[in-house]
């Protein structure tokens, strides 16, 4: 009965304290933001808001949802996340399936993929490539360049490798082709792994802001994260030439708070549904036969 020992009790006591503190440090900023988003402008400017709204009102949310830039960006982000995840999952699973087999040239291919993990061309070549391909100002500039991630490929590939070879052989005997085996055996059996990698990709797409700003020449085409970047990260010392109206807009902290809060919600909502796979996915992925 190890968990009855005194040492264990002390350990778990401090363990809980630590975990609670960590949880609070994640939760309190969100709570502060929520309180700000529900408070009046003057209360925020005066530093009066901590974790409870002062002069409760929903103006910030009303304004945010009336802002077509925000709602438009939200739609683009949702579309981008769905499309980007589908494309990524397609290329990664098909490549992962093929690479989990033995064939000639596999190591060379693998080496090429790994190479991209270690070295990248950098900003300028990527930019030239994307513009020359004519992807500028289109959704493709957001979903295609990062579609194939070597890291995710390795995760999926290792997951596929853990599936018993015998299963595949039995299917062959029953007359199944590679594609049927991939679709009917590998994909269903590796749902936890797919969910894990899918979540990585999804969150990545949802939070990516730099590519949106880089490749879009119109703010209406910005995904939500890029939009928020331009709204929130401002008021630096460089804004010397700020005009009166801009200065007034800068202090609309409640709207910023509302926008940040709304933008984090979708991904928080998706998370619980994937979490059961998430835990399993990581554990299974680590087991070797």
């Amino acid at each position, binding site marked *: 009965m190890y968990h009855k020992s005194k040492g264990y009790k002390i350990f778990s006591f401090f363990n809980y304290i630590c975990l609670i503190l960590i949880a609070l440090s994640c939760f309190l900023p969100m709570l502060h933001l929520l309180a700000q988003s529900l408070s009046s402008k003057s209360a925020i400017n*005066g530093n009066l808001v901590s974790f409870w709204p002062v002069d409760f009102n929903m103006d910030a949310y009303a304004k945010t949802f009336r802002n077509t830039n925000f709602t438009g960006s939200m739609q683009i982000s949702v579309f981008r996340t769905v499309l980007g995840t589908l494309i990524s999952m397609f290329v990664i699973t098909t490549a992962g399936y093929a690479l989990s087999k033995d064939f*000639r040239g596999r190591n060379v291919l693998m080496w090429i993929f790994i190479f991209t993990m270690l070295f990248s061309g950098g*900003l300028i070549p990527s930019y030239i490539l994307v513009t020359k391909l004519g992807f500028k100002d289109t959704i493709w500039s957001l979903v295609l360049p990062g579609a194939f991630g070597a890291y995710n490929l390795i995760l999926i590939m290792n997951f596929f490798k853990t599936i018993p070879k015998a299963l595949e052989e039995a299917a062959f005997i029953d007359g199944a082709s590679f594609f049927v085996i991939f679709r009917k055996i590998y994909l269903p059996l590796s749902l936890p792994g797919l969910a894990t990698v899918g979540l990585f990709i999804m969150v990545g797409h949802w939070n990516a802001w730099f590519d949106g*700003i880089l490749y879009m020449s119109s703010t209406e085409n910005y995904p939500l994260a890029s939009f928020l970047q331009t*709204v929130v*990260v401002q*008021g630096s010392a460089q*804004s010397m030439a700020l005009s009166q*109206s801009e200065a007034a807009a800068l202090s609309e902290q409640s709207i910023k708070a509302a926008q940040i809060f709304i933008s984090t919600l979708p991904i928080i909502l998706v998370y619980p549904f994937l979490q059961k796979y998430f835990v399993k996915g990581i554990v299974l992925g680590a087991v070797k036969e």
Partner: protein
Amino acid sequence: MKKTGALLSVAVLLTGMLAGCGPVKKEGGSTAEATLKDGKYDPPITLTIAKQQDENAGKYINGESLNDNVLTRWGVEKLGIRIETTLLGGDAAQYNTKLRLALTGSEKLPDVLPVYDTSLENDLIQSGLVKDITEDINKYMPERLKEIYKEYPTAFNPVIQDGKVYGMPIAPNLTEGEVMLVRQDWLDNLGLKAPTTIDEFEQVIAAFTNDDPDGNGKQDTYGFDFSGKDSYNTGWVSDSVMIFSAYTGKHLPGQWYNEDGKLTYGSVADGTKDALAKLRDWYSKGYLNKELATQGAWDALADFTEGKAGIIIGRPWLYGSVKDVETNVQGAKISAYPTISGVSGDKTYQSGQQNDGVFMFNKDFNNMEAFFLYYDKLYDAAFGTGDFKYGYAQGYDYDIVNGEVVFDPKAFNTPLDAVQGVGKMAFTKNTPSVDGPGKSFYDLAQGVKADTGVLMRSAANDPTTSAGYVISYENRDVLLPNAFNGPPTKTMQTSWEQLNTMEKETFTKIIYSKEPLESYDTFVKQWYEKGGTQITEEVNEWYTNAGKVDVMTNMGLK
């Protein structure tokens, strides 16, 4: 066989990618055919532009967008000029990155490029992709604009190279100066007057700290609120430069000053040490913002807005950003005063901005006439003439209700704060103005009737802000533009960052009493040793070169 195939495809792929890095293709410049008839192009021509646009400036209404809005439509209808934004950046850093990427030649550079960074301006000139416009200015710049540009010859400095002019300042015009915002109710409670000298200033902030000005029986207030995070000369809000200038005169921290033809750096000027000694004394007595070194200019406002601090300095519109204290705290009242005078009895100085970036042009762009036609029209709003007599568009930045022009957002359906500043739908971040540091407010105070858009808009402001602008105009001689506005010099590129960090750290540590006052002398010595001497030389060399060729005459601006 398989292997060769794979190799071949890789080779094909590589060649394809390399081809993308080839020489810059000549494109554009095809707009020269359209003719100008009665001030209108027929068929309409297109000017492509780059633009830095802040989301905070508002949003488009009525389903409008960046390239299709009330102002672009106006351009097509009235002038036959279509403005199309082909390069867009959100904040300054992103915008600069995108401009640099455009220099790779992977796409066509827009015709008109507003550039806000001197080092990027220099890179653009070096790249050979921007146009020498000396002749064009002479030929096409309308007379009323020439009158304005004549007054700001040094604003051209960053874009002059070898006697040629590769750009022009955007709407040169001195920004408004800073005023001192003081808690009037605190002054009244303690029976004090607004300070006009450094000694009076010290008495007031001491009283604000120790004598319980808000009468709540607790010692929870302090005197002077400013930010030292980025610079001790912020130039817009939460500024402390007044204290330095009180001892150094025209030598401001972080800024170059032209003393009898030689440029010197303000942070190492005589008197800076006295200013630091003063601030150090005040800080230890609790008169200053405790977190001054960690709060950026904008964040430092919070204490004042909260009702903890008594004095803050900034541009006149700062009142609008801190007036919430009058809602939050019962009886609070803010008044605007001029900044104090220095120990020598002279006024205190502050940094003034004479333009916001420069316009540069694609070297293949050959329709400067169209650009100037459009640019001149934008000035209508500043002069109160033509189509923009009252504002840029009815129903956007003004409206006519019952035959009267109104600027009050509540008086018409479209709430003003939601509209993307109409003028900003054109080329630049800010709209042209000829108002100087608040001339319209001064004129109104002198009893001039508000009959142009500019005057009416000024008249619609609250009394405290207006008072601030009047002060700013009356004291406009305290505004000093930085004498050095060229690209970073050679030594600056390698050691300016270090010198700046050293400066900031030394100043802050002295104020915080973490280092003795004498470490300022060590700093000055090291500043010169670690590149300062060299930089001063280079800066002066740049200054001599900038003034060598009389470009103003070549541009017809004399």
